[in-house]
C-alpha cells in the first residue's frame, strides 16, 4: 500500500465519477429529447464533449495532487502528459 495515496485516490476517483455521470446524464437526456425538440442533439454533443474532457481533467487533478504532496517529479510527468494531449487537440483541428 506504500505506492497508493488514499486521499489522492479519493479525489481522483470522484473526478472520474463526476465526468462519467455528467456525460451519461447529458447523453441520455439528449437522446430522449431529440425526438421532441430540435436542440436535443446539442445536449448529446455536450455530453460527448464532457466525456472527451474527462481524461484531461483527470491529468490536471493528478498533477495538482502531486504538487500538494510536494512530489515535483510526478507533477512534472503529469504536466508533460497534459502538454502532449493538448498538442493532439491542436494538431487534430489543424489537419
Amino acid at each position, binding site marked *: 500500500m506504500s505506492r497508493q495515496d*488514499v486521499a489522492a485516490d479519493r479525489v481522483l476517483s470522484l473526478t472520474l465519477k463526476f465526468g462519467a455521470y455528467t456525460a451519461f446524464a447529458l447523453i441520455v437526456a439528449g437522446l430522449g429529447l431529440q425526438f421532441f425538440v430540435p436542440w436535443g442533439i446539442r445536449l448529446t454533443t455536450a455530453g460527448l464533449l464532457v466525456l472527451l474532457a474527462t481524461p484531461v481533467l483527470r491529468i490536471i487533478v493528478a498533477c495538482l495532487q502531486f504538487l500538494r504532496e510536494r512530489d515535483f517529479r510526478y507533477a512534472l510527468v503529469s504536466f508533460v502528459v497534459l502538454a502532449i494531449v493538448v498538442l493532439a487537440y491542436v494538431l487534430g483541428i489543424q489537419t
Partner: protein
Amino acid sequence: MTLATMLLLVAIGFGAGGFGALAGVGGGIIVTPLLAIYFGLPMHQAIGVTLLCVIATSTATSSQYVERHVTDVRLGMTLELATTVGALIAALVAHHINRRTLAVLFACFLLYSAGSMIKKAWNSRHAKREEVIPDYTPQNYPMGLAASLIAGGFSGLLGIGGGPIKVPVMLLFMKVPLRVAAATSNFMIGVTAGTSAYVYWGRGDVRVDIAAPLVAGVFAGSLLGARISPKIRAFYILMLLVCIAGWLAAQMIYKLLTGGFQ
C-alpha cells in the same frame, strides 16, 4: 436515425461495456468491426466512434479501481508519457493509410486478442483471487515505456485500448502484480484513447449520432459490469467474447477477400 437503430446501438454498447468490464478486457474490439461490417461505416469513422466508447469504459470502470486503491497512478502517469506520444503519431498517420490496410491490421489484432483472451480464460480456471496486493517496485522502465509507445500506436491506429500489449509487459518485465497491472492499464486507456480521439474529433471522423447511443450503452454496461465483476467467474464471459471476436475476424477477412472496405 430511427428509434430502432438507436436502441440497437445502445444494446451493442451495453453488451460491449458490460462484457468488457466483467471479463476485464476492453469492449472496443467488438464495436469497430460491428460498425464497419453491419452499419457500413468507413473504417476511420468506425475507429473514431470506438475511441469514445473506449474512453467511456475506462472512465466508468477505473473510478472504481482507483477508489479500491488497486491503480498505481504514478506508474500509469509515467507510462502515459509514451502511450500518448504513440497515440498522437498513429492518429495523425492513420488518416493517410487506406481503409483496406486498416481492415487487415484490425483483423490481425482481433485474432491476437482472441488468442490472449483464450490464455486469460485458461488461467482464470484455477487461479485463486489475489486478496492482498503484495509489495512491489516497478522494474525495467525502458521496456515498459517502449511497450507503451507501441500500445499507444495501436490505439491511435485501430481505436483500441491496447491492454493486451501493456498488461503482459507490466506483469512479466516490470514485475507489477496482475491486478495492479490490469487496473493501471485500464486507467491509462482513457488518456491514451483521449489523445487519439481529439485528432479524430478535430478532423470530423467522430459521428455524434452513432457515438452517443453507443456511449450511453457502454456507460450503463460497464458501470453495472464493474459492480458485479467480483462475484462472477470470468471464464464463460471470456469464451463468449472469443467466439464473437473470432466470428467478426472471419467476417472481416471474408469481406476483404470479396473486395470490401473500399
